[in-house]
C-alpha cells in the first residue's frame, strides 16, 4: 500500500476537524471536531509506524497514548461545558465574549442574554409579595 493513501485521508480528516472547530457554535460540536483532529493524527502515527517498521513500535504506542489523552480531554471538556451551561445558561461559544477587548457591543449584547434569568426571577416574587400580601411568598417557599 502506498503511504500516500493514509496520509491523504488523515490530512482530509484534519481539515474537516478544522472546519468544525471554526464553524460550529455549540461547544459540544467543537469538542467533537477536536476529537476528529486527534483521530487524524492517530491515523498518521499508525501509518508511519507501519511504514518505518519501528522496532519499539513508537507510533502505535503513541497512538494509544493519544487515544487516552483524547478521552481525558473529552471528559474535562464536557465538565467545563456543563459548568459554563450551569452559570450562563448557554454553551454557545459565540455568546461567551465577556473577555473581549472592545466592550461596546459586548456590554450591549451581554446583559440582555445573561442578566434576565438571574435578576428577573428574584424581582418577580418580591413584587408579588409587596402587592398581594404575605401569604403567597410563604406558600411558595413551603412548596420549595
Amino acid at each position, binding site marked *: *500500500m*502506498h*503511504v*500516500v*493513501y*493514509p*496520509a*491523504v*485521508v488523515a*490530512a*482530509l*480528516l*484534519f*481539515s*474537516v476537524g*478544522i*472546519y*468544525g472547530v*471554526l*464553524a*460550529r*457554535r*455549540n*461547544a*459540544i460540536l467543537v*469538542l*467533537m*471536531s477536536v*476529537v*476528529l483532529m486527534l*483521530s487524524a493524527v*492517530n*491515523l498518521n502515527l499508525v*501509518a508511519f509506524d*507501519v511504514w518505518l517498521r519501528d522496532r*519499539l*513500535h*513508537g507510533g*502505535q*504506542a503513541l497512538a*494509544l*497514548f493519544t*487515544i*487516552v*489523552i*483524547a*478521552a*481525558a*480531554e*473529552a*471528559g*474535562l471538556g*464536557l465538565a467545563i*461545558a*456543563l459548568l459554563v*451551561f450551569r452559570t450562563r445558561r448557554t454553551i454557545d461559544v459565540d455568546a461567551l465574549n465577556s473577555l473581549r477587548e472592545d466592550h461596546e457591543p459586548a456590554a450591549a449584547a451581554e446583559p440582555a442574554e445573561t442578566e434576565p434569568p*438571574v435578576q428577573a426571577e*428574584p424581582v418577580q416574587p418580591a413584587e408579588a409579595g409587596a402587592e398581594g400580601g404575605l401569604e403567597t*411568598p410563604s406558600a411558595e*417557599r413551603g412548596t420549595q
Partner: protein
Amino acid sequence: MTAQEIVFLLLGVVTVGSAVLVVTTRQLVHAALWLVVSFGGLAGSYLVLTAEFVAWAQVLIYVGAVVVLLLFGIMLTRAPIGRSDALDSGNRWAALAVATATAGVLVTVVVRGFKDAYLPLRAGGGTAGVIGSSVFRAWVLPFEVLSVLLLAALIGAIVLSRTDVGPQRPEPSDDHDDQGREDA
C-alpha cells in the same frame, strides 16, 4: 492498485464522508451518531494497516466511551433535539476557506513528499502481544505518567461538575439573601 488499497480507500471515503456529516449536520444527536460511523471506519483503516490492538482500543474508547460521554453532554446541556439552524456560527465561509486551504496545503505536501514511498503490509505487526511488550518494556515511564494524568483529569472533572465542592457560587447566596430580606 491492490485489494488492500481498495479496501482502505473505501474505508477512508466512509470515514471522511461521515466526518463531513458530523460538522455539517443540522441535528446535534445525528452529529454524535455520525461520529460513531467515522470512528468505525477509522478502526477499519487501522485493521487494514495491521494495527489490531490500536483498532480495538479505538473501538472501545472512542465508540464506547467518548461518544457516550458526548451524548450525555448533549442531554445535560438541554441541547435542541431535532433540526436547528443555530448550530453554525456566522463565520462559516471563512472557516470553509481556512479548511480548504489547509487541506490543499497538506494534501499537496504529502503527495509530493511521499509519492514513491511504499508501505509493505505484513501480518502480526500490531497484535496485542507485540504492542503490550513494547509498551511495558520501552514505554513504561510515559505509560505511568499517562495513567497519573488520566487520574488527575478524572478527579478534575468530578471537582468541576460537583456543586458542593469549592467556594459557594454567587447565585445560591443571592437567592438566600433575597429570601432572608423577605423574611425580615
